[in-house]
């Protein structure tokens, strides 16, 4: 269909589709033109000017990131002049940048650092014009250092156009231009949903998570503390790439080994509580489908999505599953079930989670997340923090001997591991819901229509003679498409075509979470997701209801899915939040509480 054009890049002929940029054409010709503000997943902002190129037969300079390739173009990507220009731009950028490489969170990942290094630019080639700017430490999840910001605009682009959260914007003008929250109230007082996509797209270390690492080390090295740890499904798919292994390589045993070497007292696995979530959420879904009440059920395990819902779609709160996220389920079990079982005083337990997510830091600190009588999860480390931890401990991750976790709270099925990828929760839930509705397993457990990187995915299933329509969205801009449709259908017809909807705040799901390594692109996220599906396919059990450890837990402690005790510990309520400050204004649903009351009667 599409028209092809031919052009020359540094003398090499290349054929590209019409509409491709010079940058893309050059890539095809084997040249990666240097870029700084550009990111392949985002619309070019054309802010930095590093990617300028020249032309053989005509004058002028163009930014290759946003200039379409034309038939017969003869592009020059490197010349004496271009080298000078690029160096100059790096020098200019550095002159207004807090050069803090040794202690910077982005050291070794910083695109500015890399360019400076490749171009042989001296840090102080130009006198510093940097002015003192205060760090924004108002958020419990995300910290911003304006002195490191180079105004590439990626964070704004992702917050505004991919996530449609609009927590940040470029404000003021000229040299005073900066990135700020509405009215300068700070991230913690903004609509920010803590998804952290701004961090993974930041080319420098201007954005990072609020650091819990120091506190975790302190706890580990405190003899009086019993420090336990859980790791999210998506962690195991990214750790390897940070230690020179292939993207998507799943490294469970090494992960446990690293945690053990670091000195955690007990190693659980969030995958276990992911299976538990399916039991609780699946039971809820089946119940609501049978009753035909408050459909569609919408998943609740992505805390970025939950805050987004509380701000922008509080009227849909009654549709969101009351099941807590796997992190919080594990947290509450740690300080109840585990403490009881091991004879520990929960106040001596420090519960740590390792998450691909910055919103989990916010979730752990929600006041309602203390059903154990204590804050259920004390500290949340992102993948990035955990990688630093392994590096500080000087562990040779790649060559670690695999180790075993604490089985009673770590055994998991394939259904749990795919929680880390978009569509995974849906697929896991379908596997169990089918069983709950029909008393038998699906012929094939693979629900491929809900897999993959398409923004919105839909599938129609036939279970026990009835048809169920489900939808999956990842990235909140995509989520809006489904949510607006659902809202409209509910308003107009009182019912929606969907029975069950999965929403993940981050594009790609948790493998693309805001706590994952800097610069994780959509393409990388897809490969990590494939790694998880591969693990799923290789596990002996692939449906949560077949997890023996979960069945034991119900027998020993919780009773049955949806029991009073399960509700008390494993379910929660939502709030309506201000779109301006993100602060809670009112309770949005009482479904969970009503359930408890009813159970008490």
């Amino acid at each position, binding site marked *: 269909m599409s028209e092809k054009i031919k052009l020359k890049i540094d003398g090499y002929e290349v054929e590209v589709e019409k509409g491709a940029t010079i940058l893309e054409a050059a890539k095809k010709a084997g040249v990666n033109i240097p870029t700084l*503000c550009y990111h392949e997943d985002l619309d*070019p*902002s*054309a*802010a*930095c*000017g*590093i990617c*300028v190129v020249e032309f053989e037969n005509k004058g002028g*300079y163009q*930014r290759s990131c*946003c*200039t*379409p390739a034309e038939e017969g173009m003869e592009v020059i990507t490197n010349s004496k*002049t271009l080298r*000078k*220009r690029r160096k*100059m*731009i790096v020098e*200019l*950028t550095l*002159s*207004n940048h807090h050069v803090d490489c040794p202690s910077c969170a982005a050291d070794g990942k910083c695109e500015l650092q890399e360019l400076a290094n490749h171009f042989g630019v001296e840090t102080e080639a*130009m*006198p510093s*014009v940097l002015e003192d700017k205060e760090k924004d430490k108002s958020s419990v999840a995300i910290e911003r250092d304006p002195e490191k910001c*180079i*105004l590439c*605009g990626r964070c704004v682009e992702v917050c505004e156009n991919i996530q449609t959260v609009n927590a940040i914007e*470029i404000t*003021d*003008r*000229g*040299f*005073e*231009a900066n990135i700020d929250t509405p009215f300068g109230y700070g991230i913690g007082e903004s609509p920010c949903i803590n998804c952290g996509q701004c961090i993974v797209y930041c080319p420098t270390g201007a954005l990072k998570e609020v650091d819990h690492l120091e506190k975790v080390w302190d706890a580990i090295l405190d003899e009086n503390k019993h420090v336990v740890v859980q790791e999210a499904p998506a962690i195991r798919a990214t750790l390897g790439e940070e230690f020179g292994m292939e993207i998507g390589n799943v490294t469970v045993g090494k992960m446990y080994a690293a945690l053990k070497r670091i000195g955690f007292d007990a190693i659980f696995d969030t995958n276990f509580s992911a299976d538990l979530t399916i039991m609780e959420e699946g039971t809820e879904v089946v119940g609501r489908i049978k009753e035909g009440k408050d459909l569609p059920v919408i998943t609740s395990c992505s805390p970025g999505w939950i805050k987004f819902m509380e701000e922008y779609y509080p009227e849909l709160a009654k549709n969101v599953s009351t099941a807590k996220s796997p992190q919080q389920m594990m947290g509450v079990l740690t300080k109840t079930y585990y403490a009881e079982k091991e004879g520990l005083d929960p106040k001596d337990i420090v519960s740590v989670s390792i998450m691909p997510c910055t919103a989990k830091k916010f979730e752990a600190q929600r006041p309602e997340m203390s059903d154990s009588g204590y804050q259920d999860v004390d500290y949340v480390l992102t993948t990035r923090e955990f990688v630093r931890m392994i590096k500080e401990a000087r562990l040779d991750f790649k060559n670690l001997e695999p180790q075993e976790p604490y089985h009673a709270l770590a055994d998991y099925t394939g259904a749990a591991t795919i929680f880390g990828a978009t569509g995974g929760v849906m697929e896991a839930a379908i596997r169990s819901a089918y069983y709950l509705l029909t008393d038998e397993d699906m012929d094939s457990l693979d629900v491929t229509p809900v897999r993959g990187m398409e923004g919105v995915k839909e599938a129609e299933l036939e279970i026990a003679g009835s048809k169920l329509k489900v939808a999956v969205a990842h990235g909140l801009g995509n989520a809006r498409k489904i949510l607006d449709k659902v809202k409209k259908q509910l308003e107009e017809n009182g019912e929606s075509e969907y029975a069950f909807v999965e929403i993940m705040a981050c594009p790609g799901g948790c493998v693309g979470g805001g706590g994952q390594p800097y610069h994780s692109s959509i393409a990388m996220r897809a490969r990590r997701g494939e790694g998880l599906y591969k693990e799923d396919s290789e596990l002996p059990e692939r449906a949560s209801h077949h997890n023996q450890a979960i069945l034991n837990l119900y027998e020993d402690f919780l009773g049955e899915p949806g029991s009073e005790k399960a509700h008390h510990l494993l379910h929660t309520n939502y709030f309506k939040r201000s779109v301006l400050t993100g602060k809670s204004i009112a309770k949005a649903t009482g479904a969970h509480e009503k359930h408890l009351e009813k159970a008490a009667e």
Partner: protein
Amino acid sequence: MSVVTKYVLFGIDDNTLQAGARRVEEEFKRELKNAGLDDEIKVVETGSMGIIQKGVVILVEPDDIYYTEVTIDDVKEIVNEHLLKGRPVQRLKFDGKVDKSVVSFRESAQEIKKQNRVVLSNSGVIDPENIEEYIAVNGYEALAKAVTEKKPEDIVEEIKESGLRGRGGAGFPTGLKWSFTAPLDKKPKYLVCNADEGEPGTFKDRLIMEGDPHKLIEGMAIAAYAIGAEKGYIYIRGEYKLSIERTEKAIEDARKYGILGENIFGSGFDFDIEIKIGAGAYVCGEETALLNSLEGGRGNPRVKPPFPGQVGLWDQPTVVNNVETLANVPSIILNGHDWYREMGTEDSKGTKVYTILGHVNNPGLIEVEMGTTLRDIIYKYAGGVKGNFKCALVGGAAGAFIGKEMLDVKMDYDHLGKYKAVLGSGAILVMNQTACIVDMLKNTLAFFKHESCGKCTPCRIGNVHLYNMLDDITKAKGKEEYINNMLTLAESMQQSSLCALGQSAYLVIESATRYFEDEILEHIERKVCPQNVCEMK
């Protein structure tokens, strides 16, 4: 304005003297002074006007308006209404026949007549708030002719043939610009008039809007017809209160007369105009930044391509033209392209409105043929230089310094380009020997630093470094390598900035160092400001 833009000629003869001409003249001078017009409007005594028994007789030139039976009590009204606001006082106007040969002294007034007025033909002559006066001087005839007799493609062709080029600064051929949008099927299309005049030293567009807003409206309607737009916007900078007021009124009047709205002149062509106001941002003069601002957002320039002609306002095909450009259109349609092509140089046709300022005797606004030399502009029209000519900053902040050597270069788009200078907006700031080039350069860079939109790295940070180096030089902290550093940096910015703002610093710096390297070196090496302007400490 301290230009001589008008002359008030007092017919002095026995009759008028008896009627109290001298006392009226005194009062006139006093009122002009009070109104701050004393530099701009010259009172000249002349002989008999040939109108007798009509009391005190005065003639306002070049407006060619005679007032009779003027008393001391009328002076204030004439000054306020006619001379200040451009609305001749009908009540005192003399409508009878005048034997012009009787007028013995009109040489001074001829200075204005030397100008070749196309765009400014009505300014100061008609009441800008009265549509009928505009109609009386053949106003809206061109529009009527266009929509009833011509096809849109004929209009595009006519403008192409005329050689009219954009008067905003870049000089892009107007007809060619229209021809990119005219054939597109995508609807709606928009016509946007760029009235965000912000180039330092430029106020031609303001005077067109204040003095003859209907000419702009007519130009817009013709342009809209040519490109197939039904909606036009005038983006006027927020500081231009009177322009906004006058243009708003003119639009309303045009609507009342059926000149804007549906089915204009029964031709089936619909067109209306809305005014949008800016809020203080020089960069919004860049057409894509203007579109962003017009949409209610930050005035950051957009990535080009796509060009506004294809993807403009709200992503629809949009032609953006400057006020002066559009004000040229009615005359071209009315008189034909051949008439227009007679004026100007080979590649720059027509006239150009200049604002001439600084150390000249008669600063102000003139409209002359393209290709008029800087020497003529300064010495023939602006009354020469106060002191000795040092240089002129031509084209505003985005322009370049022009030294003595270039006084005789023809001023048009191409000739100036050959000398690393630009015509730009037509602002000419003349400096004499007392001006310090480093000080002026620093001032220009302060302007860029303040007005950069901040999006693009070379411009946002580069201008700060340029400014800082110049600031150092004025404080005796300059280093020898600075001249070279500034040139290299400015050249980098020229080649890697997204829009004209970031690209502009190079021209001023390059031209300043080319003509006045010695003067800059004095500051750096000897730590002395020869003009004694810079602090040097």
